[in-house]
C-alpha cells in the first residue's frame, strides 16, 4: 500500500477498523521468511541473502505465496545473517546466498536444513527454534520484541501487532495528568545514562512556564560498542514515535525532534519513513485521531560528535550552533531548546512508553528491582561468545548476562572485567559479577548503567591500556570548553602513556586520582565529570597491574608494546622460516632448519611472529 492512497484515521474506531482489516487480510498459516536486515546482519551480507531469496522466489513463481519480511535487528548479531521461517519458527543462522535455494526447497517440503541450525556449544545439539537458543532463552523481550518480527518500513506491520493502541488509549481514555501519573508510577528511568525518573521529568516540563514546548528523542548514541538505540530506531521506529506523541500530548508540546547520528543512515531513513507514514494516517500532524491534539516530528541529523549526546550540547546543535554543553543550573525542562521548556528522552525510554500505557504502571513496576524498573537492552560486545543485543529485566546479575546469555568468554579464556556504561563507565571485576544490573548498584561499584554498552574483557586485556584507550577516546571527544575536561583528560592520557611505556612512577597513581577528583567536581558537563571512571575503577580493582607496569616495568597481559620483548626459544624453533617471511620489519632472520633470531633494535613488536609460529617457539615477555 503506498503512502498516498491511505485514508486519514479520523478517530480511534477508524484505527481499530484498520487494524482488523490488516489482520483479516493476513493468513497466519502463510509461510513467512523473516530475514534480519539490521545493521549487524547487513554487515555480514544480509542484503545479498535477501536478494537471493527474492530471486529464488521469483524463479519459482512463489513471490505471492511466501511472504518475505525484511525485519529489523533480531539481536544475535554474532551469528548473522539470520533467517527465521514462520509459522514453524525455524531458526537459521550464518545464512549465505548459496544456502537460499536449499532453504526454500526444504521449507516448501516441510523439511529443515540441518547444517544451518544453531548448535548449542554446551550440549552439541542442534536447536530448531529461536526461543530455545540459550542466547534468546534468558532474555525478556518487551521493548525489543517486535524488532525482529515486523518490517520497520511498513506501518501496517506495526499496527497489526497492536501499534498505536497506547496512543489511542492515552488520547481518549486518559487525562494528561493521568498519563504522567502512570509513567511516574511505572518507575521508568531515563535509559540514556542518567537514570532520571521519566515521569518526574515530564511533570516538570508540563509545569514549566511557556506556551511553546518541545520533546526531543536523543538518538545520538556514541558509546564505543553500543548500538541498541540504533537497532531500535531502525527496527521499531513507530514505537519510538508513539512514545513521543504520547509524551508530547502529556507535556503539552506540539513539536518534536529526533536527533540521530548521520552515521546511522538506516535509522535515519526508517525513522523518516515512519514519520511520513504516520503523517499519512493522521497519527501525526493536525488533530491526531480526532482528538484535537496536533504534533509534528522532524529529524535532525547529528554530525557525530560524542558530546552532542549530552542534552544541552544536543540542543545547541539542534539550534544550529556548535554542539557544546552549557551549565544546567536552570534545567532543560524549563529552558532547553531555544530557551523553551524541552523534554528530552532517549530512544529506548520513548519506546518503553507505549508499553506502560497499554499494560499499566502496576504491571510494569513488577519487573525489575526496587528502584530500577522494567527491562534494559544491552549491547553485549567484546571477548564474549554471543555478541549481540540483549534485553533483560533489571536486577539480573551481570554473570547471567555474560555467561548464560553471552555464552561465556571467547576461546575458553578467563573473564577479567566488564565495562558497563560506555567510555564514562567503569570496569567491574569478577568478584562483583553477582551485582544486579540496577542504576544505583552499578554506580556504587564505580561504574554506571549508561546507555547500555557492555564490553567484556578477558585475561589477555591489559587494564591500564584499556583505561588509556577510553581516556584517548574522551580526549578526542571533549569539546574543550572547560579546563578540567580539556586539560585534565589530556594530562591523564599523558600519565597513562608514561605508565604503559615503562616510564611511570608510583606518584603517578596518586596524580591520576587527584586528576580524577578535579574532573569529577570541576567539569562543566557529565562527559568530564564521569571521564575518570575507567581510570578510577581500574585503579580500584586492578591496582596490581598498575604496580607491575610502574615497579617491575612489565605488562602482565602482554599488551603494552613498550614493555614486552619477543625472542626465539632456540630449542623449540624448527627453522621453518615462517616468522622470517612474515615479519613486516624484517627483524627476524635465519636459515632453513636453524633457529631464527630476532633483532630487537629493528623489531616493531607487532607480534606477528608470535601469532604465526606453530611450535610455540616465540616467547613474549
Amino acid at each position: 500500500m503506498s503512502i498516498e492512497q491511505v485514508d486519514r484515521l479520523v478517530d480511534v474506531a477508524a484505527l481499530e477498523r484498520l487494524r482488523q482489516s490488516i489482520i483479516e487480510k493476513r493468513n497466519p498459516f502463510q509461510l513467512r521468511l523473516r530475514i534480519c536486515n539490521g545493521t549487524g546482519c547487513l554487515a555480514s551480507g544480509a542484503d545479498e541473502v535477501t536478494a537471493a531469496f527474492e530471486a529464488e522466489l521469483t524463479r519459482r513463481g512463489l513471490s505471492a505465496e511466501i511472504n518475505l519480511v525484511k525485519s529489523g535487528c533480531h539481536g544475535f548479531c554474532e551469528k548473522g545473517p539470520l533467517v527465521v521461517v514462520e509459522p514453524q519458527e525455524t531458526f537459521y543462522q550464518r545464512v549465505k546466498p548459496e544456502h537460499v535455494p536449499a532453504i526454500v526447497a526444504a521449507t516448501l517440503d516441510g523439511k529443515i536444513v540441518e547444517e544451518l541450525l544453531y548448535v548449542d556449544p554446551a550440549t552439541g545439539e542442534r536447536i530448531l527454534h529461536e526461543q530455545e537458543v540459550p542466547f534468546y532463552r534468558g532474555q525478556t523481550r518487551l521493548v525489543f520484541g517486535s524488532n525482529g518480527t515486523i518490517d520497520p518500513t511498513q506501518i501496517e506491520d506495526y499496527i497489526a501487532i497492536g501499534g498505536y493502541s497506547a496512543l489511542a488509549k492515552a488520547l481518549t481514555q486518559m487525562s494528561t495528568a493521568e498519563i504522567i501519573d502512570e509513567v511516574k508510577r511505572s518507575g521508568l528511568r531515563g535509559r540514556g545514562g542518567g537514570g532520571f525518573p521519566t515521569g518526574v521529568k515530564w511533570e516538570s516540563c508540563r509545569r514549566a512556564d511557556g506556551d511553546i514546548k518541545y520533546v526531543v528523542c536523543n538518538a545520538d548514541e556514541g558509546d564505543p560498542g553500543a548500538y541498541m538505540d540504533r537497532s531500535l530506531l531502525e527496527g521499531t521506529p513507530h514505537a519510538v514515535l508513539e512514545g513521543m506523541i504520547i509524551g508530547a500530548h502529556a507535556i503539552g508540546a506540539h513539536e518534536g525532534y529526533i536527533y540521530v547520528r548521520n552515521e546511522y543512515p538506516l535509522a535515519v531513513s526508517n525513522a523518516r519513513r515512519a514519520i511520513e507514514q504516520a503523517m499519512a494516517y493522521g497519527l501525526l500532524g493536525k488533530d491526531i485521531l480526532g482528538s484535537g491534539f496536533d504534533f509534528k516530528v522532524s529529524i535532525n541529523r547529528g554530525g557525530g560528535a560524542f558530546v552532542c549526546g549530552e542534552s544541552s550540547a544536543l540542543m545547541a546543535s539542534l539550534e544550529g550552533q556548535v554542539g557544546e554543553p552549557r551549565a544546567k543550573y536552570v534545567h532543560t525542562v524549563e529552558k532547553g531548546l531555544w530557551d523553551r521548556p524541552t523534554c528530552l528522552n532517549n530512544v529506548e525510554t520513548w519506546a518503553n512508553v507505549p508499553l506502560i500505557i497499554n499494560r499499566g504502571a502496576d504491571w510494569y513496576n513488577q519487573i525489575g528491582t526496587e528502584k530500577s524498573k522494567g527491562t534494559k537492552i544491552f549491547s553485549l560486545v567484546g571477548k564474549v561468545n554471543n555478541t549481540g543485543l540483549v534485553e533483560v529485566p533489571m536486577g539480573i546479575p551481570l554473570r547471567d548476562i555474560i555467561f548464560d546469555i553471552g555464552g561465556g568468554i571467547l576461546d575458553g579464556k578467563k573473564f577479567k572485567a566488564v565495562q558497563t556504561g560506555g567510555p564514562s563507565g567503569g570496569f567491574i571485576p569478577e568478584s562483583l559479577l553477582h551485582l544486579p544490573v540496577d542504576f544505583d548498584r552499578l554506580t556504587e561499584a564505580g561504574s554506571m548503567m549508561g546507555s547500555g554498552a557492555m564490553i567484556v574483557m578477558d585475561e589477555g586485556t591489559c587494564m591500564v591500556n584499556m583505561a588509556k584507550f577510553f581516556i584517548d577516546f574522551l580526549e578526542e571527544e571533549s569539546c574543550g570548553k572547560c579546563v578540567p575536561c580539556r586539560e585534565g583528560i589530556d594530562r591523564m592520557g599523558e600519565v597513562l602513556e608514561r605508565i604503559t611505556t615503562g616510564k611511570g612512577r608510583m606518584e603517578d597513581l596518586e596524580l591520576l586520582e587527584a586528576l580524577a577528583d578535579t574532573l569529577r567536581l570541576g567539569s562543566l558537563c557529565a562527559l568530564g565529570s564521569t571521564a575518570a571512571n575507567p581510570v578510577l575503577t581500574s585503579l580500584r580493582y586492578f591496582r596490581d597491574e598498575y604496580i607491575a607496569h610502574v615497579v617491575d616495568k612489565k605488562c602482565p597481559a602482554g599488551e603494552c608494546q613498550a614493555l614486552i620483548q619477543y625472542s626465539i626459544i632456540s630449542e623449540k624453533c624448527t627453522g621453518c622460516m615462517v616468522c622470517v617471511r612474515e615479519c613486516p620489519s624484517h627483524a627476524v632472520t635465519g636459515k632453513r632448519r636453524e633457529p631464527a633470531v630476532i633483532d630487537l633494535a629493528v623489531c616493531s613488536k607487532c607480534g606477528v611472529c608470535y601469532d604465526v609460529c606453530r611450535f610455540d617457539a616465540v616467547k613474549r615477555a
Partner: protein
Amino acid sequence: MKSVTVWVDGNTSVEVIEPKDSRAVHLTVDGKLIRTTPGKSLLEAVWNRPGIGNIPALCYHPIVQSYGACRLCTVEVEEQGRTRFVASCLYPAKEGLVVRTDTDRVRQLRKGVLELLLARCPEVKVIQDLAIEYGIEKPRFALGVQDCILCGLCVRTCRENIGRSAISLVNRGIFREVAAPFYAYELGDGCVGCGDCVYVCPTGALKLGPDGKPVLPKVHIPRPAAEGLLR
C-alpha cells in the same frame, strides 16, 4: 513591609524586613548575609563585597555573558541539605542559599585546575600568581608553550558587544583554538580593529598587531602523541 526568614547555616535563622513589593533574594555567603537582586549570578552577587574571600575567575568579565569555562570561580553551595560544587559565574543567586567560597575542598579543586592551567601556560603572569597563592610550585606534567587558556572572552565580546564575530573558537578538545573564518589566523574584513578582544584577554595571549588588528595565538599541540588524531 514584610518579614522574611533567612536561614544562615542550617540551624540559625534571622528575620529580615523588606518592602512589601520587594523581589530581593537573600543568601548567606561565607557566613555573611547578602541581599541581592534576582537574576544575578553568585559571582556577581558577591563581587567586591567586603569580608568575602576573593573568588578567582579568568573567563568572567562583566561586559559579556558568563560562560563557565575556567571553573576557577567554583564554590560550594548548600541547598535543601545537599552540598555541591557550582561555577559561581553561572549559578543563579537564590533565596536561602548557603554558599562557601573558600573551603578546603574548594581550594583543592581550584588548585587542581590551576595546576592544569600552569602546565599549559607556564609563562603567564596571572596564572603564575594564582598558582603561588594556591601553593603550586611546579606542575607535575610536561610544560606547554601557550598563553591562551581558551576562555573565549575575545570571541564573546566580538560577538556580543561589537556584533562582528570576526573570530571564533574552532576545533575541539586540546586542538581548540581561536581563529578567523575558514580557519585563518590573519583577520580579514570581519575585524574592525576595535581592540576589544585584546582588552578583555586575561592572559595577554592576544596582542595588537601593526595593522591595528589582533594577532591570534596559534595553539601548539601539547604532546607529540596527539598529533595526527585530528585535522
